[in-house]
């Protein structure tokens, strides 16, 4: 059913006659329209990659990063409206600090994701507007292996093996499904992720874009880190070569 002009879509506190909350859906649009972001859990770690629009060369390198540490072990990657995402990251960080204070151990990823989801959910009740951002949370350790959660603007929180959000999420998901991600180690994941991002780009529209990557896994010792720029560059080069190869095959 159409939402626009009905008047049922002006506040998150309003249900439409068919039981939908349009404001939350619109907020989801902010995520859907933003740059593609993919997160994949592999054999020994989790990799997240985002396609970032760099609108001017006046920006410093890695201005406006989308990936952060919540604590040493858990990384967060925010998709959608950047300031909203930043606020979410800040909240997650605050929660992790509180946990550390109370229990003197780093907050487990599940609890972080739950807590952020709760916070997002409160914002869908209509007191203020819903967040126009979602967040991937990722971690890895020996006992549990890699873990990957996505919290959406609606407050939903699911664990994933791999997922994509943003502009070209459908194409990206299709690409991911082609891979046997459980068998890939992090170094391969980085390359594949770069390739997928490049494949799904719309060459006419997506200019001035830059890849940002984060990883956590065995080789980072369970610490979430930004992927070093030389690794990213290498992955990009590999991806370009691979794409050319595919083109040749075609």
């Amino acid at each position, binding site marked *: 059913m159409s939402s626009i002009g009905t008047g049922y879509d002006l506040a998150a506190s309003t249900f439409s006659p068919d039981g939908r909350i349009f404001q939350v859906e619109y907020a989801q649009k902010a995520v859907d329209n933003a740059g593609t972001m993919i997160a994949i859990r592999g054999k020994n770690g989790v990799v997240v990659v985002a396609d970032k629009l760099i609108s001017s060369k006046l920006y410093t390198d890695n201005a406006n990063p989308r990936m952060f540490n919540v604590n040493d072990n858990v990384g967060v990657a925010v998709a959608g409206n950047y300031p909203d995402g930043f*606020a979410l990251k800040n909240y997650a960080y605050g929660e992790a600090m509180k946990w550390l204070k109370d229990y003197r151990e780093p907050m487990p990823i599940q609890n972080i994701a739950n807590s952020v989801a709760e916070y997002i959910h409160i914002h869908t009740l209509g007191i203020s507007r819903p967040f126009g951002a979602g967040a991937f949370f990722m971690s890895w350790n020996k006992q549990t292996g890699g873990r990957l959660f996505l919290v959406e603007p609606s407050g939903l929180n699911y664990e994933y093996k791999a997922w994509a959000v943003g502009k070209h999420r459908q194409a990206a998901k299709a690409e991911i499904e082609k891979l046997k991600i459980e068998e890939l180690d992090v170094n391969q994941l980085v390359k594949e992720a770069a390739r997928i991002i490049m494949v799904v780009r719309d060459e006419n529209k997506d200019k001035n874009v830059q890849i940002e990557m984060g990883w956590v896994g065995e080789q980072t010792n369970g610490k979430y880190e930004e992927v070093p720029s030389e690794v990213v560059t290498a992955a990009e080069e590999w991806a370009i070569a691979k794409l050319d190869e595919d083109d040749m095959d075609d």
Partner: protein
Amino acid sequence: MFRNQYDGDVTVWSPQGRLHQVEYAVEAMKQGSATVGIKSETHAVIVALKRAQNDLSSHQKKVYEIDTHAGVSIAGLLSDGRILARYLQTECSSWRWDYKQAVPIKKLAESMQLKLQANTQYYGRRPFGVGILIAGYDKDGAHIIQTDPSAEVVSMHGTSIGARSQSARTYLERNVDNFEKSTPEQLIVHALLALRDTLPAEENLNAQNTSIGIVGKDSPFSLLEDAQVAVHLNQVSTHPRTTGGAAAAAAPGGAEPMQM
């Protein structure tokens, strides 16, 4: 411009997933006279164009020192800007209170981002109708941070905000590669040239309508006196005005097309 039903409040998303009120606030910033900030490896400079309401009134104050290692300049609603500048000053002071050291510029950027974001999400507030450039120097080197009402806070090599700032940015983008190794004097000249490009052809920079703030390694933030400003302006006047600047200046600042 027409009114649509999704632009009444910051707490409403449009069906396209946009926040119109926030976008309008960005327009308010674009009405303000321009300011330019650029940095080299060791220094950061902000220059601003001050307007006077009329011949009898004094010029606006657009550049503030917020600590010995940082200053801000403002474009947009100056009273909003002053509130934010004061907020940053308290942040600096607060950090000094805790650690007896100057606050990292990144901390200022983050505080700013969160403060601005809150005003784009909660009912009963409006976004700040102002953009701010923070020039600072800390352990990580020189910084120029650009903020705008939509709570985008970005670290830049150089940037400009305010009326006709596109012309200034064009100049900066053309010259960005030279900034890194510039001396402070060269940096000021670059900034002034960029600022001059935002002016209509019949106006020019003078010591009264121009503010220059500079900060860098081993030199605390200072707001240059009129006499010092004049010296730098003299240097600028030797550079002829580009036609490109004038052409860009012809396009009115606040009238960039708005998509629905």
